[in-house]
């Protein structure tokens, strides 16, 4: 259960990047999470609700985009999606596949923010 550590890092990184947007509100945080990253989305969502309390992200939603595992096959030279996480073989020729190209990602892709309201002079 290291999802709390993961979302805590997310909250810290997003908070740091907000320095460029004073007064902005975060509406959404989008992550890219590889299918082979050993992170469970339900746990991320649960921990996120806890981690954002009292931060500038308090009103934001977490969106998790899952990245499938793809491998590059040394035998036939092609790339493809892994047939199953229990079978690291090329989807085209079934040769053993050791070269994992995607699926280990743990990234903050983007955030959606609402700019601070403009102060209108009386």
């Amino acid at each position: 259960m290291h999802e709390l550590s993961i979302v805590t890092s997310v909250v810290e990184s997003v908070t740091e990047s907000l320095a460029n947007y004073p007064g902005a509100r975060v509406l959404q945080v989008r992550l890219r999470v590889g299918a082979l990253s050993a992170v469970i989305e339900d746990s991320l969502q649960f921990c996120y609700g806890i981690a954002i309390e009292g931060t500038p992200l308090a009103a934001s939603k977490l969106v998790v985009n899952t990245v499938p595992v793809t491998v590059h096959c040394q035998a036939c030279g092609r790339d493809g999606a892994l047939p199953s996480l229990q079978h690291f073989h090329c989807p085209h020729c079934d040769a053993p596949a050791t070269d994992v190209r995607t699926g280990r990602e743990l990234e903050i892709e983007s955030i959606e923010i609402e700019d601070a309201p403009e102060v209108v002079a009386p």
Partner: protein
Amino acid sequence: MTTRIVELRQGILKKNDELARQLRARFEAAGVLVLNLVSSPGTGKTEFLQKTLTALRQQGLRAAALVGDLETDNDARRLAASGVPVRQINTHGICHLEAEMVRTHLDTWDQTRPEDLDYLFIENVGNLVCPSSYDLGERIRVALLSVTEGEDKPLKYPTLFNSADAAIITKIDIAEAVGFDREAAIRNIREIRPGIRIFETSAKTGAGMPEWLDYLGKQCTKRLQRS
């Protein structure tokens, strides 16, 4: 009110990964071989490591160990019986080690510097999931599996076994008594990590340890340079 999308495109664990890169560069420059041992609780990591450390010391090699646990320094005290420097990392509830913990303990470890070592073993917290995400700057990640755990463990925890450089099967002295299916276990490990080097060992009887120690010898650049 205007809303907009701000692209960040950054690794969530970028601080850990950056620190791990710095540690790896330091370890490489020091010529010390660093291994990260990962398994379930109760697989026999500590016993296996103690036998490994004792054997290396008898060969006149310089080894040390950092051992991670949620609580207690029991494992560090067990490992200290091997006569090599051992340091406990208590994570106090955190289910894995992070690069920052490794650096902090190395920096405050009197009389034990990576530069003076041939081998540094990091025994991770007993857990097959969370340690997979955290690079500690190791060169070799070792996944351990005992004969009592079920041959399908690698299939249930593909992330760890796929990221391992070597796999150790422990407690083979009791394999028959617990009905361990050796072929199935090896097939499952290779299903997740084709071509991985697998060692079948018993810390109790010493079976398989010579092959493991021979592998360690071939991986250590500093030793190879000396010989």
